[in-house]
């Protein structure tokens, strides 16, 4: 029978055992690695040289991997016979190399601040390939309007403000998308998280009337949504709602034909789904006191025990998510529209609409890692192994975002796997940061390392380019913020440059043709 047989009688239920006591080896959560990232993490000499020269922590980004992701998303468009554009949501990573490299691909750029817009323009994105989303100040609106970037408007008031700004400054007409939210459902009531963004669907008529009134200065290109959910159903409802909204716009004589479905396609972080299942089951058992502790101070990641009953909700990203990224987009487009009855891709294609997407995290999937030097390894009297790093939880913020993966050990040169016998075999370790704060833990669970690390080894936090790399990093306690290195591989040979030095056309080097 089944995969798992659990002897649940309390008399035989172990609450702890010598094998699983403190210091025991935790269950693995191996990160999913694909080339070129997997290969890069094998380059011990290169990685150690880089950290020695540039310090710890050190961010690595892989522009070529991002280009591959662009191709994957565009392939989904092709498979469904859809036209439109893929926008990289810049907020996922501030690297210049990634944005400059993307400028050399067919991708476009979604920016959410004045700095990001300037960065995009400077990286080679012409304004017709830029879209401004999110909260916007007058400076951002002015620069967008001045250059001609698409403005994804967030409220009725913003439509009026933008029209007023264009008139006041005699700017050219601005292309506009209208971001919608709170789409109606039929039959059941779908509860939704309150969103601070977007125009309530019930105010659509007001927004469209305003766009008709200002049609000389605002050119409505289409409608948009972005829902912070991994649930397909809510997005299916929203996409159909957008198609219906476009029809309203066309009925008013507006030339609107874009549906922007935003991002939130997600990333599959773990190599093996069953590791995730085993780990979360073990966490449940630990929270209920029926299994060995596996977290710092009994941290439950949102779960708690009330009289032996499990309460709360697991506050973790579903790290094993086979349906993520381009595959998630494919599933969305293949779904049937709830009221119109055709597959959503067919509905878009038949309506002659363009599909825009804004992947962020999924666009930088497998496109980076953060390296950190091991400074100290010690054991507590309770048998826990503590590993202190030259980096902190803001430099590598996976824990903040609830993404759990084991780091990859990159041993120092000369520290071969055949070291002292007591260092052999996998160990569990809590990762301590370099801030003088109790709370600065890079992991509140014991991570699994292939063997006991030693000072001078590196830990590589793989696949962290989306939101976990430098999103939260700062100079607290005068600790350094990581530098970023862009790595490329040509015919098997790795080349690198500082992020700010990277351009798709590299400078001439000795031996290269003039």
């Amino acid at each position: 029978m089944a995969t798992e047989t659990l002897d649940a009688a309390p008399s035989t239920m172990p609450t702890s055992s010598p094998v699983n006591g403190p210091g025991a080896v935790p269950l693995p959560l191996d990160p999913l690695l694909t080339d070129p990232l997997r290969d890069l993490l094998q380059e011990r000499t290169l990685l150690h040289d880089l950290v020695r020269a540039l310090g710890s922590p050190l961010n690595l980004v892989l522009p070529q991997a991002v280009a591959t992701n662009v191709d994957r998303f565009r392939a989904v468009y092709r498979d469904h016979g859809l036209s439109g554009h893929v926008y990289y949501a810049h907020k996922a990573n501030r690297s210049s190399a990634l944005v400059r490299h993307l400028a050399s691909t067919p991708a476009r750029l979604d920016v959410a601040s004045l700095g990001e817009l300037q960065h995009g323009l400077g990286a080679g994105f012409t304004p017709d390939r830029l879209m401004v989303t999110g909260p916007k100040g007058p400076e951002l609106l002015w620069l967008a309007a001045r250059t001609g970037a698409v403005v994804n408007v967030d409220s009725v008031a913003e439509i009026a403000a933008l029209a007023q700004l264009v008139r006041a400054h005699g700017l050219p007409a601005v292309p506009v998308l209208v971001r919608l939210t709170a789409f109606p459902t039929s039959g059941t009531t779908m509860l939704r998280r309150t969103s601070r963004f977007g125009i309530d669907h019930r105010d659509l008529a007001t927004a469209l009337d305003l766009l008709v009134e200002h049609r000389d200065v605002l050119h409505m290109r289409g409608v948009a949504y972005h829902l912070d959910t991994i649930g397909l159903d809510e997005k299916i409802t929203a996409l159909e709602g957008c198609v219906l909204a476009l029809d309203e716009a066309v009925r008013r004589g507006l030339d609107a034909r874009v549906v922007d479905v935003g991002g939130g396609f997600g990333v599959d972080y773990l190599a093996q789904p069953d590791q995730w299942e085993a780990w979360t089951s073990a966490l449940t058992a630990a929270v209920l006191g029926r299994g060995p502790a596996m977290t710092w101070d009994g941290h439950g990641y949102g779960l708690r025990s009330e009289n032996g009953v499990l309460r709360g909700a697991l506050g973790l990203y579903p790290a094993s998510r086979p349906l993520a990224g381009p595959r998630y987009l494919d599933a969305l487009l293949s779904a049937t529209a709830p009221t119109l009855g055709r597959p959503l891709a067919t509905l878009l294609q038949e309506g002659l609409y363009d599909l825009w997407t804004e992947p962020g995290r999924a666009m930088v999937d497998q496109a980076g890692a953060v390296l950190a030097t091991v400074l100290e390894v010690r054991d507590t009297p309770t048998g826990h192994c503590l590993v202190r790093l030259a980096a902190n939880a803001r430099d590598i913020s996976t824990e903040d975002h609830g993404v759990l993966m084991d780091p990859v050990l990159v041993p120092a040169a000369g520290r071969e796997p055949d070291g002292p016998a007591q260092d052999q075999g996998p160990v569990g370790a809590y990762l301590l940061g370099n801030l003088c704060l109790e709370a600065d833990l890079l992991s509140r669970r014991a991570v699994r390392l292939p063997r006991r690390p030693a000072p001078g080894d590196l830990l590589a936090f793989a696949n962290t380019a989306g939101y976990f790399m430098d999103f939260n990093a700062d100079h607290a306690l005068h600790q350094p913020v990581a530098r970023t290195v862009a790595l490329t591989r040509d015919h098997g040979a790795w080349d690198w440059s500082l992020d700010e030095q990277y351009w798709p056309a590299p400078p001439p080097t000795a031996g290269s043709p003039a």
Partner: protein
Amino acid sequence: MRYDSITDAIGDTPLLRIDPQVHGLENTDLYAKLELLNPFGSVKDRAAWNMVRHDIDAAARDGRTVVELSSGNTAKSLALIAGAHGLPFRSITNRMKVPEIKDLLLLIGAEIEELPGQAECLDPTAGDDPLTRIHRVLQASEGEYLHTDQYYNPRNTAAHVEGTGPEIIKDLGGQGPDVFIACVGTAGSSTGVATALREHDPRVQVVGLVAAKSDFIPGIRNIDEVHEVGLFDPATYDHVDAVSADQALDGMLTLIRRCGVLSGPTGGAAFHGAVEHLRRDDDQVQGRRTAVFIVCDRAESYLSYVRKRRPELLRRPARAGSVADVTDEQAAQVPALTVDQARQWITEARPLVVDLRGSFAYATQHLPGSVNIVDEVFDDLTQAGLPVDADQPVLLVCPVGERSARYAALLRDKGHTDARSLAGGVVAWRDAGAPMVRTR
């Protein structure tokens, strides 16, 4: 048998002996408790009625709403009972995974609130379980709800301590079974029956079945989720085994095709789990052994679940001569007209212009003079033969000219003499600036 209330028909379900040829156990008599024969179709009828029977008349007088956290049989039973007593019913659930049940609940008149999916960007301050959420709703209310609280309500269990369990003992001639096997959902039926059987004879072995973690079996919780249930006590079970969705469907098929029991997947899981468990030591049994499992509910509500996981079970023979049979070569041989050629041909030959797109897209904009026959309808129409005179010229139109070529090839294959396709479809037509009209 004459009843005054439909709830009087709850309980006293048959205990069916499964043919040994079906389960293959030499030394065990295996019985199925047919809870699917309750009036609303499931074992939950007992718990639902027992949880509301004491309060429902008062609740009806006060105009309260029955509320429960359920997306399945409990919601169905409660909605029907509430309706029969003139009360509204409201269900708060995670996303409904089985569309037939959702439709059925709407048909019964239930109000359904589905909770949002997990956030893509983690907000550690947000996120609470549905149980906590429903309690928050109830705390904020001022007595307008009758909350049945199935995961914690002892009357859920009591329905089976007093009903299901004693019925099994009585039907076995006063001898309880040696082994009892049940799936764990709210744990109400398994706990209740186990309690009754143990009181009768403490030697009974109780097996709880949970879903394998990566699988979804309607009505069964997985090995982690059972711990969220207030009625779940690990001490109830001598063994807890996991069943996969595949195994549940195997068991369900056996019950349906070989036993004449129209069981849903949960009953299938119980049957499969029972046979697997009993097989392990069947050859060591001294004399005869008796085992009972519960068939919780019926198959009809799970057809889409079956279609998703085992489409071959519901397959219909492929239709010959449909558009799916058109080869790429056939499609390539169809005359494909550019926009200019098409406009000229329309003027000269007055072909019938058929737009194969969906009606919504057609209504938004289409070629002047065209008629809308949606592709799937067109496919049906061609089954009996040509839906248009064989000599009447036809221009087929789709979004990009791909589907229209296939349908034109289909027409030609069936003897049509002049079916053509608009190359590049409506997209090319629009991009060329050719006229489009709108009907709404």
